[in-house]
């Protein structure tokens, strides 16, 4: 009976406090991770609107091709003048 009580007291005053301390040490980094994740999400979600202009690059390529064709005509006209 005495050993049972010693075991109960050990569980109550040693094991449970150690578990609580460990859980607290896990909880505090988890809270920081949550804050960082919120921050990253808030700023990372702004990538897509900034990159929407990349879709205009296709139009830029088409326009450059047209300008190139006109430049060839212009160069040929210059050769005729020369």
């Amino acid at each position, binding site marked *: 009976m005495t050993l049972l009580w010693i075991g109960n007291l050990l569980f109550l005053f040693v094991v449970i406090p150690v578990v609580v301390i460990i859980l607290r040490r896990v909880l505090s980094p988890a809270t920081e991770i949550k804050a960082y994740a919120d921050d990253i999400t808030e700023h990372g979600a702004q990538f897509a609107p900034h990159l929407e202009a990349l879709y205009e690059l296709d139009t830029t*390529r088409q326009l450059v091709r047209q300008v190139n064709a006109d430049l060839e005509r212009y160069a040929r006209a210059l050769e005729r003048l020369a």
Partner: protein
Amino acid sequence: MDTAHIVLLLAVTIAIVAIAGYLIAIVLILKHVVGRLTTILGAVQAVTDTSQPVGEIVEDINRDLDAGRKLIEDAVGRLEASQVPVGATSAQSSRHGVEGQALGGPGGGTATAAERPASAPAGTEPVRLSTDAERSDPERHPPEAERDPLGSEPDPPETAPRGRGWWNR
């Protein structure tokens, strides 16, 4: 069951509840973090998909621009080598250019020639460069409705003075 047992049972229950509370809090936080990471992963994937063909497009644009630059540089080099004052040709010698100007000399094109060049085949009109400014000039280029549907130039009025070019003879 004596009082000591009840006190011990209460203490253990409180401890277990506290531990469960910590565990639940940790689980909720981790769930929130996993949701945020999923959102971030989706955004990163979208950015990757968007920017994947950009390198190829930019290389294509750079290649086109480089080709155009070389084209213009070569043309300007040839123009400079021929030593033809381009401004003078356009300002002084128009289609009905200055009389007595040397044929084939600086500023003297086929439009100012006194005779028809031998290289031109019979019955052909000289090729003339038209510009956008000329196209927008209603006096030189009437609207499409007034022009001949076959595409030929409208006949000038009888009173209009004829030019001295060989094609007006």
